[in-house]
């Protein structure tokens, strides 16, 4: 298989049980099983992970940075969604 035909995979690592998988980087592989082994070799040489996810880059649907203003805009003018919007007297303890 020529290099151009290799598929791009995104690699996600869980550094410790109980934590989320985090994006670590990407790599080329011929299939998902290979991608998993390559990810182990490339991204966990210093015990960075206890679990690896690989996902075909093509399968990721991402929001566009350029559109982010209008995309995320609806939550900008809603300060009442934050706890700090409400004044709670000290006497009643943390809430």
């Amino acid at each position: 298989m020529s290099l151009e035909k290799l598929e791009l995979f995104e690699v996600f690592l869980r550094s410790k049980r109980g934590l989320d998988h985090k994006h670590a980087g990407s790599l080329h592989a011929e299939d998902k099983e290979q991608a998993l082994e390559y990810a182990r070799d490339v991204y966990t040489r210093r015990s960075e992970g206890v679990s690896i996810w690989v996902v075909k880059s093509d399968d990721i649907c991402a929001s566009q940075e350029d559109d982010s203003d209008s995309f995320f805009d609806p939550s900008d003018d809603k300060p009442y969604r934050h706890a700090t919007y409400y004044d709670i007297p000290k006497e009643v303890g943390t809430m």
Partner: protein
Amino acid sequence: MAEYNKSEAELEAVFQQKIDSEQKIEPKDWMPEAYRKNLIRQMSQHAHSEVIGMQPEGNFITRAPSLRRKTVLLSKVQDEGGHGLYLYSATETLGIARSELIAALQSGEAKYASIFNYPAQTWGDMGAIGWLVDGAAIVNQVSLQRTSYGPYSRGMIRICKEESFHQRQGYVIMMELAKGTPEQKQMAQDSLNRFYWPALMMFGPHDSESAHSAKSMKWKIKRETNDDLRQKFIDQTAPQIAYLGLEHPDKDLVWNEEKGQHDSGEIDWEEFYAVINGNGHSNRQRIQHHVKAHEEGAWVRDAMSAYKQKKSQRKINADTAA
């Protein structure tokens, strides 16, 4: 995986060792069937509670006394729907389909928090629900952030972060009413009286009566017992009631200096079991409404699948043309 070549007993020993050393269990790990079942029961019940919990407050969106209060309430109800989705998704990591979970809710096989079978009657109830019902839920959820199942724990962390405003907005409603006219103050008192005891019931039966508690504690699905969590809530709520200048609904409540906590009156357990078993004021209405909304939404799901089909057919046509 190598793990799966071990015997059931060995696998269970490894599993319990993970639990005992405070490691999270993740979806692909081996787990005892009873652990999985217990989690599905608790997590789906939690998810159902979020979704059914939208009804009593949703009912007041059109009746909120100002535009600001309407937007706040709308945001809160929207959050509850979102939290239901987080929890359904986390439950699905255990290998059960969303449709099965919804079917169990609608048939009455699965439960949800009984508190939502009490009707919301006045604007004061919007205050009492946010303050007491969300307050009790938060006490429980803070504890569940340390639950042994990874996806549930992470869901709880996210939910707790988002939920902090729910209780505060409720308390602000109560403060406004308590400082208002005598009628408004009476409304606050009435809401407190009706929601205080059901809020205490949210923590479930006494530890000695709780069917699932012992196993759940051993597996660290639950981290604190029903009674311990309830005590926390009683202690934190007492000064909040005093600050409002309202009368405490529990006439037996006294501070116990020696124990460093309040002694309190007994809950009406007969009422608790009656409501759980379907005889609360709003049980039938809540499920009927859920079924109705689900059925009336069928055309949206149909439209989505028709659109998907149309799109993939177009792609096929374009590909053959090219």
